[in-house]
């Protein structure tokens, strides 16, 4: 008998007290009920208030938050990279090219063949995101075309993440999960890397990026916004 069969047999023997019909596929009895009486979202907010809460909670965990619109974005990105003295920035393949129009730092493409050591030499990384959660101050990256492989937002010390508001912002964890696909690798980011292992003193940045900057990108004037939406739908995110 294989270990697999032994373990499953032991489980079945251990559950001799459970009525045979209980559980998935059972007829009639469903077992102990799961009451999902908890809230889908905590509190009633307008979309603008949800975005404000996101900004507040991001800042609570020491992410640096900026706000701009499509017109101001390239200039802001250029300024933030310059302020850090970045000489190179990693960009995922599906990133909107206009985002980097205002910077002259070297753009490094996200390639499968790049080694971890090569990534370690890059100063910053610029990505979009899939969903952001206001109640927890969380960004979810799903490795989509404007986010790239998981490791690019990990190895460089500085992560610039652009969140389109309000459409990419949800209120709560229960609202976020249906908007991301479990078959894609996901990275949930809530503030920069941190530890409290030494006498419970919080220290930012142990192994992941020590600086997380979030740009809340609001919709541009009507004509531009239509174009931007088309681009978004075309990237196959949802």
């Amino acid at each position: 008998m294989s270990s697999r069969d032994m373990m499953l047999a032991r489980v079945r023997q251990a559950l001799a007290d459970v009525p045979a019909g209980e559980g998935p596929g059972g007829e009639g009895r469903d077992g102990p009920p799961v009451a999902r009486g908890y809230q889908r979202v905590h509190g009633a907010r307008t979309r603008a208030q949800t975005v404000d809460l996101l900004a507040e909670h991001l800042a609570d965990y020491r992410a640096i938050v900026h706000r701009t619109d499509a017109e101001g974005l390239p200039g802001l990105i250029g300024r933030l990279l310059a302020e850090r003295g970045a000489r190179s920035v990693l960009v995922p393949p599906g990133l909107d090219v206009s985002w980097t129009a205002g910077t002259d730092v070297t753009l490094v493409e996200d390639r499968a063949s790049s080694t971890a050591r090569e990534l370690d030499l890059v100063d910053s990384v610029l990505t979009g995101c899939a969903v952001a959660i206001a109640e927890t101050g969380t960004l979810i990256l799903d490795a989509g075309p404007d986010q790239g492989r998981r490791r690019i937002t990990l190895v460089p010390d500085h992560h610039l993440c652009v969140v389109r508001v309000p459409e990419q912002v949800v209120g709560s964890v229960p609202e976020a999960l249906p908007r991301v696909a479990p078959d894609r690798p996901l990275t949930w980011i809530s503030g920069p890397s941190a530890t409290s292992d030494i006498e419970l003193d919080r220290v930012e940045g142990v192994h992941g990026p020590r600086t997380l900057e979030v740009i809340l990108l609001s919709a541009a004037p009507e004509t531009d916004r239509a174009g931007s939406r088309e681009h978004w739908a075309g990237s196959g995110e949802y």
Partner: protein
Amino acid sequence: MSGTYLGMPAFPRAAATATRDTRLRANLTHATHTIRDKRAKAVAELDDWAQLRAAGAAVKDRTLRRLDHYLEQLEAAVTAAGGQVHWALDADEANRIVTRLVRETGESEVVKVKSMATQEIGLNEALAGAGIRAYETDLAELIVQLGHDLPSHILVPAIHRNRSEIRDIFRREMASWGRPAPEGLGDSPAELAEAARLHLREKFLSAKVGISGANFMVAETGTLVVVESEGNGRMCLTLPETLISVVGIEKVVPSWQDLEIFLQLLPRSSTAERMNPYTSTWTGTTDGDGPQTFHLVLLDNGRTDTLADTVGRQALRCIRCSACLNVCPVYERAGGHAYGSPYPGPIGAILTPQLRGLAGPLEESLPYASSLCGACYEVCPVAIDIPEVLVHLRERVVQGGPVTLGGTRTVLQPAKGHAAERAAMRAVGWAFDHPGALRAGMRLAARTRRLHPRRLPGPGRAWSRTRDVPEVPAESFRDWWQRTRGTSSGRGTSSESGTSSGPGTSSGPGTTSGPDTSSERRGDVK
């Protein structure tokens, strides 16, 4: 402290040593009180916490009650997504599987994410025996590993160390494991974290094999979930070519949607944050992103035996948040090492004796490593009734009874050492059946109260070594009742006896004398 749990003394002896270590107690008190206060605030932000807690418990219960189904579903989903699933009955088998998988890669070094399951099976030692070096990459686990030490807390394993001890460990040990500590390393947490960053980055950038556990496995989709703070988890999960995850079979949840419960319960209960800095989920392998070979080792190691106990089964709901440690008065004083396993505190006191069986002095002593105050149950995000399981296990220790060991149903014999307790309980039972003898005995005890020793002789010595013997009142409750309200009954079954005008609330001859002994007593019998 040596880096293994083998040969750990029984809880009372280990705790007696720890409680005399004033630095340890100060570190622990600071840590546990800080985390518990922060946790209370984080939990208070969600006004549906009670419903989330009930849902978390219910999902885990339902899953456990059809665990065979969900494990098979999980296996199919992981396999379909490009992963390989292995089944390990016990620690030895899990270690053999992991060792073989690492050998097949041709590598002799691995990087590890902090994992309770691999601590439990002693994976690092097993790998070392096969010539494979396993590097712990969580800062606290690194401190523990470099210090040839053992973890003492589920969430913050090096909490028993303070900053100057950590600096000394880094200065002394880092060089023999890789990049040495920076010259003139100070003891500020930021400097120490930076030293760890530099030391470990060397490992991350060259690692070919990563080993992890998982916080959750989703049966429906085959997705594994790891929550962490530092990014070392992400490093180990995404940079190596091969990823091996060793996960206890109880970590499965049925559906993707169920994560909405646990990703709210876990961070707030554990680190007292709205969300931990990093959560990684992956499903099998993804072309061009992350490890291209993924192995999942499903670990039993006593879990099916635990499942067979209808009272103790609830311990398998545990999501390893460590909230119960931070509120436990016993943990706060005894520290984590006294529990003799990677699972300290109240959850360890019920989990370890069940996973290993009530097999020796340590396991038999753990159900007694509690005041039964109930604080652990109050904070548990999946509502494990730890006191209920503790009492249940005490009964098994003293009286023996049916248990499942290694998949075989058997009858446990009463533990040796508890003969006096059983004799005492039999004597009490006889006395309650013979009211005359009971009355005479109580009068005799009251009259001789000035002569009673502070420590008990003979078989009672073990009990009174760590407790004050309660003082016997000058008059028994029955005599007092008889004297003040007495008619003929004397059995005190009147319905008013429990109300505020009843006996024992003010005049007190029916209660023990001082506030200390009475609270001692309350703690003992609750």
